[in-house]
């Protein structure tokens, strides 16, 4: 069982030097040592991961923040029999650790050592994997499972979710990455006009396995997993039980 550790670019900062030395010592003590790849502007994450898998790594561990893990999962999903782990280092952009039940910092090594594994669904957008949510604002037409056509008018905040939590217009949502479904959440909030007593707030929730998202006017830029963008029209689908993830006992899903 070979381990590969993907260090994010920001960990090259001297502030993290001591923490990384301690991390590597603990991993050696727990017999979890493995090859290290460091992300930089000149190195592609795909090259680093395919090289590691070719050399026999079967557990890929993201060391960094939410973006590090999301970028790793996007690429790791292309390979078979891969398990993904996460060591959240640093305090900025750390929302996924809590959802996965993984403590921040080097304490996460113990979670890695326990190897409690959950298989989760991923999503696909125009052939590329994603795992948390897709967000966009505008007017849309959605074809769901080739059976029904939905038209969303007005300026709608649309979120298509698979994993994670979401607060939208005072409503809380928690997506389940093990239900073999995506949820489309559309929220429309009209602005208060002088002839109206208050602004109206409407919410729609629609479950789907496959959908085609088209903008009613000009193409709209969709934000995928908070770190990349895709333009409409987009073909979006669930990819069931696609990746094995090491999680903690206190995970929230």
């Amino acid at each position, binding site marked *: 069982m070979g381990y590969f550790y993907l260090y994010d670019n920001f960990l090259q900062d001297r502030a993290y030097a001591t923490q990384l030395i301690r991390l590597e010592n603990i991993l050696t003590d727990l017999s979890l040592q493995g090859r290290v790849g460091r992300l930089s502007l000149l190195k592609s994450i795909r090259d680093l991961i395919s090289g590691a898998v070719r050399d026999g790594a079967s557990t890929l561990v993201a060391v960094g923040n939410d973006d590090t893990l999301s970028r790793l999962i996007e690429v790791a999903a292309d390979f078979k029999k891969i398990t993904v782990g996460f060591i959240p280092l640093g305090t900025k952009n750390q929302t996924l650790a809590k959802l996965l039940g993984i403590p921040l910092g080097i304490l996460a090594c113990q979670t890695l050592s326990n190897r409690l594994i959950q298989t989760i669904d991923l999503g696909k957008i125009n052939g590329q994997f994603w795992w948390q949510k897709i967000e966009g604002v505008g007017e849309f037409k959605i074809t769901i499972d080739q059976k029904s056509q939905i038209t*969303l008018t007005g300026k709608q905040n649309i979120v298509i979710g698979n994993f994670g939590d979401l607060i939208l217009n005072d409503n809380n949502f928690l997506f389940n990455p093990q239900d073999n479904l995506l949820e489309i959440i559309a929220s429309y909030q009209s602005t208060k006009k002088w002839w109206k007593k208050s602004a109206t707030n409407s*919410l*729609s929730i629609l479950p789907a396995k496959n959908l085609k998202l088209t903008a009613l006017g000009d193409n709209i830029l969709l934000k995928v997993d908070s770190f990349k963008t895709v333009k409409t029209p987009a073909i979006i689908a669930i990819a069931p039980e696609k990746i094995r993830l090491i999680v903690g006992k206190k995970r929230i899903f």
Partner: protein
Amino acid sequence: MFKNDNNGLETIIGPNVKVEGDFVSQGNMSVEGIVSGTISTAGNLYIGEQAKVTANVEAGSAQIAGHLKGNVVVHEKLELTPTSQVQGDVSAKILVVMEGAQINGHYQMGSVPQTANVKERGKKIASAE
């Protein structure tokens, strides 16, 4: 299961939403927008006051407060509120019609044959228990 703050509703069709085609669900559903085609849910269905539905509807239980043009089959309790207007035939095990509700069509009470969607939900509930 996906969790939200909306009383366990798994599908909500809001006021600014128009749905055309077949809409099949296993969970609870609320309609406040415009729907044309068919609606089938094994759970509870609520059709709101502002909703305009032109569809044949099948549900486990239902409460209708808005406009519905189409036939309705409900396997348990169907409640028509004072603002409801139904144009079509209604079939339900238990039918509650409140003062002011309008039905333009035939109605039938008693047990209704279950379709595959409703049977599947029944099995899921039984296995969960």
